[in-house]
């Protein structure tokens, strides 16, 4: 049954051209990230042979202020951005789904309390929080990933809660409550598999925005100095914007391409999973 469902999903998904392009681009990005050591001409921090060399056959994207190859930086940057995006979305998914499911399933006072917590959390301007924490504790990519993950989960929680609330009243869930299944079993086997779709869509979008957040923090000089991320490359690009345009252009294009791909895939999934949207066509 699960297989049929997935096949049905793909039948709709593959009709959406934008979503298919997004998927192709995204897969290529993952491939580049995995194959970085083999396809990158230089190491991320390696001296490539000259400072501020403009794009040429030897250095397609030029070299930077420390004589590092920009193309190699862009290639290795895929690893950092994708890992960061996956990490943030993963943390957010786990916390959001657990708390959202608890709120929706048990209702009453538990729900009132948790819903209030979600709302309070959503109002806190995350970027300032992250800047403050990074300033106090220092920059480390894994710590930043955890902090960002800890600030973005409420949207997943709210979506899960709403899904659980609708599913809970459905006959098949009521039947399993009547048949004496435990709460955990019901949530795990009946509610989550049927209600997880919008959370997956949201996770895709969260990966996209996490990648932008990481780039932004590194650009501000709050990134991990030991990782040559796209944001860090742009931080140096800003300092030499008058001499080396190539340092600013290429890492930025990489960010936009990756984020657009994530957004296209997210839209495609939500389209393929939502019969209401399909009818509008």
């Amino acid at each position: 049954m699960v297989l049929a469902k997935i096949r049905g999903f793909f039948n709709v998904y593959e009709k959406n051209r934008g979503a298919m392009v997004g998927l192709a681009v995204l897969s290529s990005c993952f491939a580049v990230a995995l194959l970085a050591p083999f396809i990158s001409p230089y190491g991320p921090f390696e001296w490539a042979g000259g400072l501020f060399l403009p794009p040429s056959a030897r250095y397609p994207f030029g070299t930077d202020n420390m004589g590092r190859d920009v193309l190699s930086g862009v290639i290795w940057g895929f690893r950092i951005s994708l890992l960061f995006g996956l990490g943030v979305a993963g943390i957010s998914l786990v916390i959001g789904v657990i708390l959202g499911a608890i709120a929706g399933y048990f209702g009453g006072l538990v729900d009132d309390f948790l819903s209030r917590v979600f709302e309070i959390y959503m109002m806190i301007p995350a970027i300032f929080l992250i800047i403050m924490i990074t300033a106090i504790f220092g920059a480390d990519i894994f710590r930043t990933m955890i902090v960002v993950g800890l600030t973005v989960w409420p949207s997943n929680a709210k979506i899960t809660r709403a899904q659980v609330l609708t599913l809970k009243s459905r006959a098949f869930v009521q039947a399993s409550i009547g048949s004496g299944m435990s709460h955990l079993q019901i949530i795990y086997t009946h509610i989550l598999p049927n209600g997880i779709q919008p959370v997956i869509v949201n996770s895709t979008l969260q990966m996209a925005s996490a990648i932008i957040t990481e780039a932004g923090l590194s650009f501000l000089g709050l990134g991990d100095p030991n990782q040559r991320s796209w944001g860090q490359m742009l931080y140096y690009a800003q300092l030499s914007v008058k001499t080396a345009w190539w340092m600013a252009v290429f890492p930025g294009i990489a960010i936009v391409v990756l984020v657009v791909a994530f957004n296209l895939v997210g839209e495609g999934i939500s389209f393929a999973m939502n019969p209401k949207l399909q009818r509008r066509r």
Partner: protein
Amino acid sequence: MTRYLARRLLEIIPVILAIVVFNFVLIHVAPGDPAQMMAGEMANQEYVQEIRMRYGLDKPIYVQLALYLANILRGDLGYSIPRGQPVLFLILEKIPATLLLVISAQVFSVIFGTMIGVLSARNYGSRKDALICFSSLVLYSTPVFWFGLILILVFGVGLRIFPIFGMTAAEKGLTGFAYLGDLIWHAFLPVMTLSLAGLAPMFLRLARSSILEVMKEDFITTARAKGLTENVVFFKHALRNALLPTVTQAGFALGFVFSGAVMTETVFAWPGLGRFMMDTAFQRDYPLLMGMFLFISVAVVAASLITDIVYSVLDPRVVYK
């Protein structure tokens, strides 16, 4: 209505409390002496001692929290040693520049984004619509700071038609209209950056999707059945209803706009709160940093409260409880 207002006002108390407590926890979790942290790294021992006394840092933790809260409620956000000024004063000094940037960008984005969104929705399914959707997706996916950098490259470094940093050419000592013109000239690129990369596309997509949603409603069918022209149906019936979500979004997006403003101000050396926050972060001026976090959080919460109230006035279907 009064009861509704009172209830909403009461609701923001836990939010502010949560932020204050968070700051408090951070002070204690951070490595080193909390008193030193609250005084700032550059403070001398006497001042650290004074802070320890004032905040009761040698007393039990709940007394400390109460004293911390009491000081903040009195409007005392601390004192910045490196700058020799109270934190609140420093923040208020930087607010106008940020507000100028944020409000201009917000107004431009709502108007421009909605107009293009209407255009897109009216041409639903056409090639024009597809092009608008794709461009808005790309702009929406573009980091604000990179977009600013590219604008600087093209219009500042390449074409040399716009200044690339600062808010005014102070050295010229302009006044009156010349000053205003200079200000607009300086603000143009930053406002465009903040609007086009993220904000305007957001309002565009919102307007488009809510118009498409409203056009399926029964009252639209009724209006058409009455024999009204398509233009009257669209502008008098559909658009007014479709713009309600835009009002909500304009208020709730404030946090998003503020974070974009930090980036924009950094790229363009715009002398506002965002850039100030970054300088502060590198100087480890913790009292100032925490004061700013609290201040901005309260601003965001207040904006969402005002949005709720405006919305309930605009939409008669909302019932005050």
